[in-house]
Each structure stands twice: as C-alpha cells, then as structure tokens.
C-alpha cells in the first residue's frame, strides 16, 4: 500500500518548474503549457522519448513518424532567432531525439539497447572477443569462404545466405524478448552483430571484385 508520503513524492516528481515562468510543467513535457517556453530534455529512455513503450517489435514506421513529428516541434531551426537559452534547450532536445531515433530505427542497436534497459550489457559499438566458440567457428569459416570466393556470383550467394540468416536471427530475437528469455536475446544479438559485420565484408568484397572486373 503506498502511503500518503509516497503519493506526495510521486506527485511532486511528476512536475518540474518551468525555467521561464517558474510554473509547474509535466516532467516530460517539451513545452510549458503556461508560457510556451521549450524545456530541457527530460530523463527518459529512448522509447519513451518517442512516446513508445519499450518493445523490440516496435514498428519502425512509427519510430520515423514520431521522430519527424517531434523534430518539427523542437528542431533548433525553429529557434534560430530566440534567446541563447532557448536555442540551447532546443539543441539539447534535438540531440536526445536524434539519439533515440538512431538507436531505435536499427534492430541491432534496438536489441542491444533494450537489453541494457533490462540490465544486460550488450555493447554493440565496441570490439569485443567472441565468447561463444560455436559462433567463433562459424565466423571464421564464413570469412574463409568469402576470401576464397573469386566471382561476383559466389559472393552474392554468400551475401544472400548471410542476409537470410540475419532475418532468421531477427525473428529469434523477437521471440526471445517476447518470452523474456534475455540470455537467448543476448546471444542472438551478438550473433546479429557478427552477421552485420560479415555482410559489410561481403559488400566490400563485391565492390572490389566489380572494380577488378571493370578495369580488366
């Protein structure tokens, strides 16, 4: 049972004071309802920043739509002739929004981020050693096959296979999150990360081959 003190604390936490007119503003509002001033970005996770619930299966079209809607309201271009403070807040809002957008529109980053929200650290940007020996084997074999592929057709085949794998992994990640199996989600996210890298390598390889053949 929440006590009265808890309720009061909760109620207070729902508001911040507007920097401009000093009145109460909902903690997550972008603008003050009384004086219209843009507010500092609230501490929010990327999903809630876009008005979404944390969910791996978030619709990318919805992410785009929300992103553009908010950008229209807070982009620094809208504040170019406003006082420095408002310009700074608009910029901070746009920075937060861009970060949310960049994270959520990409399923790999979204998965890693959702894991981190749930307390699992799966950093995607940093190079780290593969701990899963099976995955390690697979990666090495795939790289070898790519090195040996000397025709564009062969590279395309490898590319298609990795692409199909990636799609399968994505649906696996979705299932894992749905059943709250964070271990599986984490494992599959690492796998997706390597598949992505491998797909990049196949692309590079393909361009190299095309250029070789183009100049030949």
């Amino acid at each position, binding site marked *: 049972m929440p006590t009265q003190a808890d309720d009061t604390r909760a109620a207070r936490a729902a508001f911040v004071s507007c920097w401009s007119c000093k009145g109460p503003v*909902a903690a997550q509002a972008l603008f003050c309802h009384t004086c*219209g001033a843009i507010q500092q970005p609230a501490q929010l996770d990327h999903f809630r920043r876009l008005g979404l619930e944390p969910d791996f299966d978030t619709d990318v079209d919805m992410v785009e739509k929300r992103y553009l809607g908010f950008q229209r309201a807070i982009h620094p271009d809208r504040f170019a002739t406003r006082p420095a403070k408002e310009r700074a807040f608009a910029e901070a809002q746009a920075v937060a929004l861009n970060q949310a957008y960049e994270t959520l529109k990409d399923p790999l980053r979204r998965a890693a981020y959702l894991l981190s929200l749930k307390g699992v650290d799966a950093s995607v940007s940093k190079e780290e050693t593969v701990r899963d020996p099976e995955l390690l084997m697979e990666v090495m074999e795939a790289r070898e096959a790519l090195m040996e592929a000397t025709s564009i057709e062969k590279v395309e085949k490898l590319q298609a296979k990795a692409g199909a794998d990636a799609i399968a992994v994505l649906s696996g990640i979705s299932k894992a999150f749905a059943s709250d199996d964070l271990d599986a989600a984490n494992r599959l996210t690492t796998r997706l990360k390597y598949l992505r890298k491998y797909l990049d390598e196949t692309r590079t390889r393909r361009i190299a081959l095309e250029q070789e053949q183009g100049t030949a």
Partner: protein
Amino acid sequence: MSGLLQIHEPGETPEPHAQERGIAIGIDLGTTNSVVAVADGEQPEVLRDAHGDGLIPSVVALMPEGVVVGRAAQDLRAKNPDCVVSSIKRLMGRGVHDVKALAGVLPYRIAASGDSVGMVRLEVAGRSITPIEISAEILKAVKARAEQSLGQGVTQAVVTVPAYFDDAARSATKDAAKLAGLDVLRLVNEPTAAALAYGLDSGAEGVYAIYDLGGGTFDISLLRLQKGVFQVLSTGGDSALGGDDLDHALAERAIAASGLQKLDEAGAAALLLAARAVKEQLTERDSVKLTAEIGGTKIDFTVSRREFEALIDPLVQRTMRACRQVLDDARVTPKEIQGVVLVGGSTRVPLVRRRVEEFFGRAPLADINPDEVVAVGAALQAKALTRGSDTLLLDVIPLSLGIETMGGIVEKVIDRNTPIPVAKAQDFTTYQDGQTGMLIHVVQGERETVDACRSLGRFELLGIPPMVAGAARIQVTFAVDADGLLTVSAMEKITGIRAEIAVKPSYGLTESEMADMLRDSLVHARDDMEQRLLIEARVEAERVLLALDAALKADGALLSDEERAAIDSAIAKLRQAIKGEDRDLVNAAVESLDHATHAFAQHRMDRAVAQALKGHSLDEVEASMASDPAPDGRRPGRPAE
C-alpha cells in the same frame, strides 16, 4: 492551441527582437562564383547587378587603392597577377601540408612561413594574408550587393558550405562571415540547400540524389523528401575536386604538347583561364583551339571533345565512386531513387551527365539553373529561420569524428552520416598519480590512423583534481551543432569539477586571433560591446515579462492582494528600467522581480501537486497540462510507482 504553436505557427513571425527585423539573406559562397538571394516576398529572388548578372566571381584583388572583388578583380588579373586571388575556397581550413599535397599548378603564392604547421597563409600584393580574410572580402562584396539592391542594411545570413567540408573548413567559413560583419544564422550544406529549392519548387517526394560538381568541390547527397521534411540520408564527396581540376588537366596537357618548360605565376594563371574557356566551349562544340602566349611561347593546341573526355574521365570516375558509397551508406539501390538533380556549373560537361545517367540508370533532372539553385535554397532557409516555416531540414555529419589513441590509432566517437545536432560522451582517466592535465587530439575522417585523417585540434583539459592514477573519471562530450561544428567539453565525474579546455585548432584561428581580427576590421570598430550587452539584457527582461504575464493570466487567482501588488510594482520597475540605458539597473530589476514572484511559483507548484493528489488522477492533471504540439504528442507519462 499550445504556446509554442502560437509563437511558431507556419509563416508567422516569431517575436521580433530589436536586432532581427531586417531581412536575412542566403549566400552561396562558391569556389568560382558567389551568389546572393533573398526570399522575403512570395518568390525567392537572386540579387543581380545592373547587367542582370547574378554571379559574383569569387575573385579578390588587393590593390593599393583598396580591395576589388568580382568581375572587376578578374579584369585586373592580367596586369597585376600578384595582387589577385581566386579559388580561395579550396584553401579554407587547410594547412601548409594540405596545400603541398594539392597537385597541379596552383594559382596562389603560399607565404613562406617559418613553421610548416598551422593554417596556410597567402602572399598577396606583398602582404601575408589568411584565406579567411580573403573570403571575408568576398562576403563583404556580397553583403554590399544585397544592401544596395534591398536598400537597407543586412546583418544576418545563411551561408552554404560543401556538405563534405570538414570542421576546420566550416569554422573558417563562419569566421570569414563574422569578419564581414555578418551574423551566420546557419551554415547549410550546398546539396541540401539545392534540394530545398528544388523540392519546394517541384513538390517532389521520395528519395533524391543531389549531384553537385562546382568549381572546386564535389558533393553527393541522398535526401528523402516527404511532407516538407528534407532528411539527408547520407552524404559524400571530395572537397578538392571540381571544374578547376578539369582546367588543370587540360592545362597540363597543353603544356606537355607545346613543350613549354617553366611557367611563372602569371603564366600559370593565364593558361588556366584559357583552359577553362576551352573546357566550357567543349560543352557545345566537338573541337576547340586553345591559343595563348605565355612568357613568349606561343601555345596553339587543338582539343577534341573525345580527347578532353579521355583526360577527365578518371576525375569523373572518382565522383562515381563517391556516389556508390553514399548509396551503400544509406542502403539504397539506384532503382529506389526518384530523381537525380544536377547542381554546379561543371555538371554542364556532357561526360559528367552521361556518367551520372549510366550510374543511376535514369536521365538527371537539369531543368533548374545549376548556378543559382544553392543560393535560392539558402535564401529560403534564411526565411524559414527568421520568419518561420512549414519545411524542415534534417542534415547529417559528413565525416566521422574520432580521437587519437595509443599508437596513432583513431577511435571513432561519432560516425559519419549521424543526424545533427549530436553529442557523444566518452570517459577518460589519468595514467599518473596527481595528473591534472590531459591532451585530447580530435581528428576527422574515415581512416584508421591519425596520419590519414585530418587533425581538427588539440584540446587540453586543465584543472583535473589530483588523484591516484586511474581514479579520475573525465567525461568528455563531443557535441556537433546544427551547423556541423564541433565543441568539446569535459567534466570530472567524481568531483563534478568542470575541466577547463584550451583549444588549439590545427588549421583555424584561435579565439584571440579572431578577436584581434575583429578589432582590426572596420565593420566592428563601431560595434559597441556595452550597447550589445544592454540589448541582450533588455531582450531577457522582455522574455521574463512575457512569461510572467502568461503565468498571471493563468494562475493570478492564486495570489493574495498584497502578493499581487508586490509583483505589479516589481513589474512596473522593470518596465521603467527597460526604457532606460542602464544595463545594471535592468538586471537588478529582473532580479527583484524574480524575488517578488517566488511565492507565486510556490503556490502554483503546490496547487498542481494538491490537484494531483486530490481526486483528480495524475493522468487527468497532466493531460490538462499536456502542451505537446507534436502530431503524435508524447503524453506525459505517469510517475514511477
């Protein structure tokens, strides 16, 4: 309707400030030509000279009688080669090393300076001068043209830069504008500006490629146009590739063919001019004769279009590689592209059109004026920034930002094609007991080693509290603003101490150099600092009054009569102070008003909390306060339970 919507209703003017009633202009500061446009009325308009010419050649002559810019400067070249500078944009943000690496005949004389580091300086008319100052002269001329044709002073501008310009070149451009007495509202990327002008004109929707080959730079950008939003998906290019290089290729061929041995500066400039004329004629004709007399040697050299194309094809192929890269970066196939828009004078070259058509599998759109479209876009953006607009530009950072780590390896902090503004924080620690300073070397580029990237600057963190090695947690934040300009800030996380940052730009002006130049420049001699501060204080005071007015209208009933009287009297005092000339008085009155409204703020907060607790659910209270103007407004969430 919420407050913000009222202020920024499309087409409506945001509240006017003292300084901002003038017209903001759009400037395309080009390698070869500069163009200025305004969009104040219905249609954007390029400002032309008496002959109807919109292009101002980006040529500067430093004559004993004064500075001459444009066509007149061009005409002075033959007789005064060492006083005339052109294509200065190629040197913006460049170092001495970069210039040495620029191949071919250079029409500049680089000032011999003691050190081989830092920003390049030119020797012109016997004096040593920076590219920033020369660009400032062009901008002053542009500003003068605008003022003359508009019949009023102009202080605000949107200036375009190649999308592929790095941070050093961008800051150099902004500094040049400052020196010219222009307040840069925004640096806009050239292809993005072109897209804005083109898209608004044609009502285009979908993914478009903007291929911009000008006099000295090449940009390729992919944008998605939808419902007034111009979103850059990826951008690429080469900030040292343009029509100038085609001229060089042709000139070098002519030299080889005529057996000419040595070329002096005047000879090189004359030959390049002749080559440019031939190149431009080859756009219409199959074969052209280049004749010139250089240093007593007669050059008589006929080129066919086919020969010319063979000569320049490697350069054109370089642009195609960049096209492939941006498609790849955006994960877009040529088929998904709705249209290819050509921008820049060099896209008139038939081979360029052919190659673009081959690559994208469709004929490019060339029904726009490639010379003027960038300035028109800049003008439209200037209007959007000052008068409000329905459209929105969302741009990206063209080149990755990184920092130097052990062994000269680059660690990327912000990846290319990330939407701006963007900020990323990175933690550093000390490696020695009691260490109080730290050096951070910031570079820009895609390669893995520091040597292969461009150095932007060295940031020295000072005032780190002394601790044992590895104990400090210094969070360094790299922030790129909407102009694509980087700032770095740092904080020690454990103590909360803000480390001081001393910046040494690799190829730019330090703050004190900039201050010196500003002081020296006539434009700012009259600019009284005190006056400026007074205006700022007034603007802030007006904001406080407006905000309080809104608050009193909404919640004034919460005040007792005495409280209200105290506030009213503080308001009256502030209004009085604003009318005066004393900045300190204004600030003091703002402060006392702040005191007088303390209790009011408290009442307002208490009531909100009380309402939330009493009967009304929090959701209801918050919903009634929801001020989110976005179409899918984020509803204020519930507090943690």
